[in-house]
């Protein structure tokens, strides 16, 4: 099956490895191919809109470009949304849940805030136009980092185990059926070319596989293509530079060699362990880092995608 050919793509990885950037770039790449694409932010983050040159996302989809929309889930809105759909009467919801007593209780129900995220995503994935064609060809979720991301991804199963029946159970099962269907849902992991992020990526990868998810690609961010001298010819040059009082230059070059080695090791380790393509993306020196930067990365991802 083709790399990104899934209706639902969930981007996750260790914090600071570029999940939001990759989500935006994947979004642009898919929208450019004419696919109606919705990018989803979690926990009320609102970074994707501005990153793509648009307005901060809201709970309703906002258009940022041709075929490209963003949406931001807050668990409060999603909980309200879900409960009102179940009990059908807004006044009842307000009476039961929007008071001084139930409010804190709902906040304290462990897992509820996690569970409603994928619940909302499921609903979006099921949305149709009146002619029956799906509203969204692609939904790409910018999921939280490792630990919290796993909580959200495991929430449907956790809720099924907690409730065992009733509407929450049924809903959680529908969500679980979608996300564990490997032809419908794929995980895109992000990583940096350093030892610690790589080992955490491998740990996260096994947790994801254990939870029944399928990893469809690993994006290796911030690769520097430094113009390094041929390593075989370096030692004599190094000696000469040291003799010319250019100690700092030799250190700099050594550090870039070391970095290149780490990049190489990272890519190799990921490729050996994970049964999915590893896609390197360059570190961009752009300032500001904006829509144009995202476009550059989208171009790179597009090249790694299948021909149209």
């Amino acid at each position, binding site marked *: 099956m083709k790399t990104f050919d899934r209706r639902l793509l969930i981007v996750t990885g260790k914090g600071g490895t570029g999940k939001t950037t990759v989500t935006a770039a994947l979004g642009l790449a898919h929208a450019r191919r004419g696919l109606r694409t919705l990018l989803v932010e979690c926990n009320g983050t609102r970074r994707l809109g501005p990153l793509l040159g648009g307005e901060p996302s809201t709970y309703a989809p906002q258009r940022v470009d041709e075929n490209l929309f963003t949406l931001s889930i807050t668990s409060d809105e999603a909980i309200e949304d879900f409960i009102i759909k179940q009990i059908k009467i807004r006044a009842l919801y307000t009476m*039961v849940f929007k008071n001084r007593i139930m409010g804190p209780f709902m906040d304290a129900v462990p897992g509820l805030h996690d569970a409603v995220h994928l619940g909302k995503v499921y609903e979006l994935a099921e949305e149709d136009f009146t002619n029956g064609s799906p509203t969204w060809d692609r939904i790409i979720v910018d999921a939280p980092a490792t630990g919290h991301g796993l909580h959200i991804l495991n929430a449907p199963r956790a809720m099924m185990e907690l409730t065992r029946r*009733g509407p929450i159970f049924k809903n959680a099962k529908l969500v679980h059926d979608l996300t564990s269907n490997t032809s419908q849902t794929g995980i895109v992991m992000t990583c940096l070319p350093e030892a610690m992020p790589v080992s955490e990526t491998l740990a996260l990868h096994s947790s994801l596989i254990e939870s029944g998810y399928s990893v469809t690609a690993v994006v290796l961010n911030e690769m520097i293509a430094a113009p390094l001298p041929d390593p075989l010819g370096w030692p004599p040059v190094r000696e000469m530079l040291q003799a010319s009082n250019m100690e700092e230059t030799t250190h700099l070059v050594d550090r870039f060699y070391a970095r290149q080695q780490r990049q190489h090791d990272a890519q190799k380790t990921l490729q050996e362990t994970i049964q999915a393509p590893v896609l390197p993306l360059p570190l961009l020196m752009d300032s500001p880092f904006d829509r144009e930067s995202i476009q550059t990365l989208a171009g790179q991802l597009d090249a790694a995608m299948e021909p149209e």
Partner: protein
Amino acid sequence: MNAQVIVCCGSGGVGKTTTSAALAVRWATEGDRVCVLTIDPAKRLADSLGLADIGGQPTVIPLPNAPGQCDAVMLDVQETFEGLIRTFSASEASASRILENRYFQFASTRLGGVHEYMAAEKVRELATIGHYDTIIVDTPPTRNALDFLEAPERMAELMNGSVMRWLSSTSKTGGWKAFELGGEAITRVLQTLVGDNTIGDIAQFFDLFRELWDGFQSRSLEVQAMLRDETTRFLLVSSPSSAARTEALFFLDQLRNKSMPFGGFLVNRVEGPVPFEKSLLPTNGPGDWATVASQIEELHATQSDLVAIHERSIDSLASAGPPNTPIWRIPHQGTPVNSIASLTALAEFLPSRNEI
């Protein structure tokens, strides 16, 4: 006297765990008795200290020449929760009943949020045992760390009782009617949503939990007071990447809104300028010298680009913080920080005890 609490916050991937550990090393070297608590689910502290396994109890980090003491603890959520329940239960039998309740087992092992509750409790425990001058807390990535700040408060609100009392009364009467404000409606809604069994489990849990209310509530007030103590400091750990900066600024806002005492920024992995005197570069050299010389020049240019990006990023942190916000720059180490020696090297760039 209680230990001073230093909370290191920031988004994931900025080296928070490593920085917290290095700060502990530094202060122990200065004579402090320090304990560093990591509440991050990933076992990163263990990696950075070169220790295979740090359990829920303090483990000594050997620092031969330090006049102080440096311990490390990895939060064990379940152990902490069970400890609390045993402390406040009237008897071992009632503690066991709670520990065996299906909802408790579920809540304490599988779900988010509980983690933060227990982290705050562990900090309190370590700060009050009298062994330490300072507790340094490594927190989960940004948005979870907010939960960490709010957990004790939420706990207090929840323990405030109305809902708990109501829920527990339902398990007794089975009639679901002890609630004045639309009790029947609530019952119907909850039953519809999660089913009878679950409500039964939850109700039983809260019923058993009732005898622990007072204990839990006074605990959570204590924790709140500790986090707001005038000696407590929140340090924001960041890196020069734009994502980390955005998150650090977001967190700074939250600290302001909650009037939490902010102690400054620690910026990791900063690239510094590398001087390059082009005229010193020999005109002739081994191999294809023209190419090698231009590559060397280009590497310096790449480095300058990196430095410029990092400086701009740090400037924007500085201008977002309160006037004269201290910023500590920690140079990129080039090699992974995964030994006590490398932590000690890193510690050199961190604030000294009397600077916080």
